[in-house]
């Protein structure tokens, strides 16, 4: 019977990713280029924010991806613990730097937008603070992978760190809420009214359509990158195994 787990076989995974990669990359490029050009040049300036509103097309997708990539790493770590297939651990390893970069993009674009709008590059707002903490988690995770030489040990320890870190990341998210509501606006893209087409409470359709395209583009970009990076990790393992065999003989 066909199941998703058959692709845990590295050879099968590589074959699948080799066929998928060009298509996913193409779709990602189309969505990103299309969405960004549409967003930057063919939407009106906001009534109050002027053209600075357009940074939303980078900020929101990056922030979404930053959280979802960590979530994907959590799922992959759990899969590694349950099924002990190396590809899960390698996928989590491959995802971490992408997630860290997404977090940096979200923080930087937020700062660039915040300077003219809020009058400050940085405030200790709950959302900003929790993203900073998330960034620290990403850094710690990547550093732990790099520091441990034995791949099996590294997979186990980083998976444990990811699980424990997830609990603490959620905890921190609620802990920083303690101070105050902060400057950052609440959710305004994915409101309940958005589905019903009610634009009173959320971002107007003029901005939302290219935004969704950008979000899709970032998602596809992540899929393309993760396929590529996981294949690279598999090749690195193979090379290491070959080198070890050379040395033995």
């Amino acid at each position: 019977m066909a199941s998703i787990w058959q692709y845990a076989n590295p050879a099968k995974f590589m074959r699948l990713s080799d066929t998928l990669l060009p298509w996913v990359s193409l779709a990602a490029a189309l969505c990103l280029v299309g969405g960004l050009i549409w967003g930057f040049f063919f939407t009106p300036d906001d009534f109050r924010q002027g053209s600075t509103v357009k940074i939303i097309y980078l900020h929101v997708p990056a922030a979404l991806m930053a959280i979802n990539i960590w979530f994907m790493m959590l799922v992959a770590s759990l899969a590694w613990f349950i099924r002990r297939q190396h590809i899960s651990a390698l996928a989590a390893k491959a995802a971490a730097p992408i997630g860290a970069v997404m977090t940096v993009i979200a923080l930087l674009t937020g700062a660039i937008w915040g300077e003219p709008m809020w009058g400050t590059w940085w405030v200790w707002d709950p959302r900003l603070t929790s993203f900073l903490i998330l960034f620290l988690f990403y850094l710690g995770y990547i550093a732990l992978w790099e520091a441990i030489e034995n791949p099996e040990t590294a997979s186990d320890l980083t998976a444990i760190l990811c699980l424990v870190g997830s609990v603490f990341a959620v905890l921190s998210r609620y802990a920083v809420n303690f101070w105050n509501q902060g400057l950052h606006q609440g959710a305004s893209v994915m409101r309940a009214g958005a589905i019903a087409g009610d634009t009173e409470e959320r971002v107007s359709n003029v901005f939302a359509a290219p935004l969704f395209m950008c979000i899709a583009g970032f998602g596809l970009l992540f899929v393309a990158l993760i396929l590529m990076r996981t294949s690279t990790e598999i090749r690195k393992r193979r090379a290491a195994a070959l080198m070890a065999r050379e040395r033995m003989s």
Partner: protein
Amino acid sequence: MRALLRRDLTLAFRSGGGFGLGLAFFLIVAILVPFAVGPENALLSKIAAGILWLGALLACLLSLDRIFALDWEDGTLDLLATAPVPLEMVCAAKALAHWLTTGLPLTLAAPVLGILLSLPPEGYVWLIASLLLGTPALSVIGTFGAALTVGIKRGGLLLSLLVLPLYVPTLIFGAEVARRGAEGLTVTTPLALMSGVSLAVIAVLPFVSALVLRVNLR
């Protein structure tokens, strides 16, 4: 179990142990802050609770890599893993020993330093209470971090990087209790949340640390 605790305590108190280090660091932080921010009492009394919490946290961080490093190097950890005592209990004992040699002395020293930082009189009870309930969490989380990095040479920086984000909830809630206490506000909510964090990590993390150690000793 008791023998292990006694051994760790003796090692810490003998010269070269970690006992004096954390306490001295805490003292230095608290004494140097007024030199850095200026001697105005109004300002100091406002930030005293936060400074004391931060100092206690950093002092805890300082002695974390001693928890397992020496035992790992001379092979004691392998013996402990094969000993009739479960490894989970070993981790709990290690955390307890770390707390007795850093968290507890820091808590006891904090009121004295509170005077130096002109902490308002209402704040002392809640400062001690928050440190007493919060520092065990720091030790237990630190033991987990030390277990993760035990096999890594010169893992001190990595250990801090891993443990720092894990300390955030405890620091926020703990400092909030101390700050609210100093300002005479009600402290129930942050106190309950911080105690909840402490109890949860004490209950769960020794098992995780033992798991991590088994992976490292494999």
